[in-house]
């Protein structure tokens, strides 16, 4: 028997790739964020030798890992910031009439394959940065890299879910979600040490963006401040997921309580 989610996602993929011309254009357009992010970093390093204690290669690595994690989350759950559109179209009511969890249906309701361009570009930058940095490779560090990317993607996905939950209360919440998620994304792609202490605390412990790339990169490069903390991304991701799911449940209750 076919798994319902597999069927749903496959259906979305097919619908998307039907128009091949525009699909190719959108893949290219999605690279804009990669180019501008990388360009920003390049301009900074043209003026200063180090950023938050990291040299150019290390900073690029933080950027690239953050970028890959974010693009993976965006690929899978990026459409969650359009929750108000789903609410207005009555799609959420249709979900409520089906025997599957609403969040699972919403996540599998779309997949943005066109954003895959960013994942590829980010990976290419990360590989280049890794090659030109002198990482003291051990099996553990290989595992750390894999764990970091997965946890980072999970963390961003949880941001998307949590931010979507808030939109049950805010009618026009897309802007809110955007600032929250993209702000988190921005923070994750920079060494956390460049921020003032309050902001750094915010992005480490409240919205743990520092766990996405900065702390793991410190550990990867054996830089001070990393150590065991660099391994804690899964914990951070799990914590954010718990908050996001609680928020989602409350949001859905608010929706069925308030009606559309």
């Amino acid at each position, binding site marked *: *028997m*076919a*798994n*319902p989610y*597999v*069927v*749903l996602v496959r*259906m979305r993929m*097919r*619908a998307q790739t039907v128009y091949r011309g525009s699909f190719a254009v959108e893949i290219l357009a999605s690279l804009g964020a990669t180019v501008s992010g990388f360009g920003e970093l390049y301009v900074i390093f043209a003026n200063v030798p180090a950023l938050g204690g990291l040299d150019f290669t290390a900073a690029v690595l933080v950027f690239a890992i953050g970028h890959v994690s974010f693009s993976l989350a965006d690929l899978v759950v990026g459409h969650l910031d359009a929750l108000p559109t789903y609410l207005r*179209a*009555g799609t959420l*009511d*249709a979900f*409520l*009439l*089906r*025997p*599957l*969890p609403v969040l699972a249906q919403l996540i599998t309701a779309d997949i943005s394959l066109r954003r895959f361009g960013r994942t590829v570009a980010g990976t290419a930058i990360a590989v280049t940065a890794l090659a030109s940095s002198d990482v003291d490779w051990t099996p553990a560090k290989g595992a750390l890299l894999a764990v970091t990317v997965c946890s980072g993607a999970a963390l961003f996905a949880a941001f998307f879910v949590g931010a979507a939950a808030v939109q049950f209360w805010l009618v026009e919440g897309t802007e809110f979600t955007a600032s929250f998620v993209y702000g988190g994304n921005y923070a994750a792609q920079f060494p956390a040490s460049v921020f003032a202490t309050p902001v750094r605390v915010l992005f480490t412990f409240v919205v743990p963006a520092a766990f996405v790339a900065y702390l793991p990169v410190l550990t990867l490069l054996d830089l001070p401040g990393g150590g065991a903390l660099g391994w804690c991304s899964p914990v951070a991701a799990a914590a954010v997921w718990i908050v996001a799911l609680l928020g989602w449940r409350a949001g859905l*209750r608010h929706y*069925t*309580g308030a*009606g559309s």
Partner: protein
Amino acid sequence: MNIISVSNLRRAFGAKTAVDDLSFDVPPGAAVGYIGANGAGKSTTIKMLTGILKPTSGTALTCGLEPLRQRRQLARRIGVVFGQRSQLWWDLPLRDSFRALGAIHRLGPDAVRARTSELVDRLDLGDFVDTPVRQLSLGQRIRGEVAAALLHGPELLILDEPTIGLDVLSKERLRVFLTEQRAQHGTSLLLATHDMGDVRRLTERILVVDHGRLAFDGTLTELAGQVGAERIVVLDLTEPAPDLVGVPGTRLVGVEAGGLRQRLSFAPGETTVAAILSVVASRAQVHDLTIEEPDIEAVVRRLYAS
């Protein structure tokens, strides 16, 4: 056990009460018309019965389940169609929607295939089952929606204004299909509508709701007896004829164009269109005829006046 059991159900939106102290039961296998003017509280009731909306107070049990708390269990046992809102994937053909719904309801591929071909055949979907939903006409889409709601063989079908905006032919096809499905599968039916024609053809019991309150619960004949939910047959004659008075079971309610068009009102259950026609045929030659269903707003108004 009742398929629907509602007691003292109430739902408020802020200061506005959409459903107020509603109580009724529907036994399994029954077909109930849920009628009322726009904004009378029909959709709100349906949302509470299907787990989309939480009641402010009172209880609603559908298939013996609590709709919100046991939403997923309930979803396997009911089929719901909102005439105004689509539950299909608009950029994909109906066939893909059926496939996805089959997977969602965990039906085997053989079961999906068999059920799909039955529905395609009975609802006459063959011509457009491979066309993306967004390109379908309203009538085609609604037939697709009904098929989608019935794919998993629910024991209760809930339809909210399924025929709104449909042309005569699409309406008729849908009514014939629903009658057939009920006869074959014993599906219970709750039909919210403000079309008296739907109610007449598809249901044996009527609930009239007005301002969120139950205003009437009984058969159509009883409703007609109480408020005179009369139908009108409009006869266009080939040439002007004297007033068609004294046709058994009817009342002449209008003569236009010097007798060329005459309107007879009659109560359902007392006579039939065929009987009226046979009497009229001996007195004038009928060129064309149309039947006007009673207007639901008028019925509700008279319900309060009586």
